[in-house]
């Protein structure tokens, strides 16, 4: 199929032939079966192209774009100032201090109540479970301290993002 013929059909369909060219084209259509068939194919092509189904963006599209741009997530500790660090560390230090200061006193109280039991357990397991009492208490309080750091860090971060 030659390009000139296709161009004429395209121009005719786009309404871009002059009045004289249009008349000549239409009179040729009556006698040229190939041109007529070509016109039919191109009309069908036009209609199909114009009617191709369109995709619809998901409802979360804009939100996801904003997440990647204006609210681009940063690393948890990226951009922290000394003040941010202090806000996170202060509660942890406070809990640690309480553990150390109260540890001894608490141990003295638990000795009385569980002293014998502790001794029995020690002999069963062959280890001195409660021998290093301040570390035992720190062992219980350390996870609490870590949780406190995480909690205050995250809440501090969220506030900053807002």
């Amino acid at each position, binding site marked *: 199929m030659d*390009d000139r013929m296709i161009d004429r059909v395209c121009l005719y369909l786009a309404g871009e032939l002059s009045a004289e060219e249009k008349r000549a084209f239409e009179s040729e259509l009556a006698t040229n079966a190939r041109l007529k068939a070509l016109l039919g194919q191109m009309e069908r092509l036009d209609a199909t192209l114009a009617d191709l189904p369109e995709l619809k963006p998901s409802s979360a*599209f804009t939100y996801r774009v904003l997440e990647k741009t204006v609210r681009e997530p940063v690393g948890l500790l990226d951009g922290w100032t000394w003040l941010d660090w202090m806000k996170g560390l202060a509660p942890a230090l406070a809990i640690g201090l309480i553990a150390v200061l109260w540890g001894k006193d608490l141990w003295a109280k638990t000795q009385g109540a569980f002293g014998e039991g502790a001794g029995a357990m020690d002999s069963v397991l062959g280890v001195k479970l409660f021998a290093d009492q301040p570390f035992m208490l720190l062992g219980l309080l350390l996870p609490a301290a870590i949780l406190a750091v995480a909690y205050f860090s995250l809440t501090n971060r969220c506030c900053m993002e807002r």
Partner: protein
Amino acid sequence: MSTPAAEERDQDHALISRIKAGDERAFAELVNQYKGMVLNLVARMSGKVESAEDLAQEVFVRVWKGIDSFRGDCRLSTWVYRIALNLAIAESKSARSRSQFLDIDDPTVERGPHFVNEGDDNPYREEVVLKEQMFRLLPSMPEKHRTAVVLFYLKQLSYNEISDIMGVPVGTVKSYLFRGKAWLREQMFGDEIEDLE
């Protein structure tokens, strides 16, 4: 009294200024305004329907990153569509180079949308098959022809708008469009009318 083109330019300018000033809502407005067109543009240009949404999101990430370099010497839509086209063309090129190493029976290889199933008694089946065939053919069309065809039929953009986006004269746009349609006709109907007199 201002023309619609001048009004659009003013609106673009106001939106861009707000975005540059860090107004999150202004950027959301831009995304909402162009997401439909961008999504369909990248889907048709790359032929990757399933990953089109990710690609379209990447377009807006690039818009965001490049917003300071937008000088306003073209319409905002023209600039956004250019970014979308560049990304979609790069994606289709890399997909094509990857496909040289892909197994044809690999079920993970994306083959375009399926609008119709075997044995479907849809009365418009032939029309639907034609659309499916066209969707699959588009990504293989020569790049410039494909760009003109996709832009012209997606939102009925004018020759002038397409000329701005592609950076070529209007006459060249028409030539790309006609050659693209001729290529599609050849692929879809072959030589079934060659014997006619």
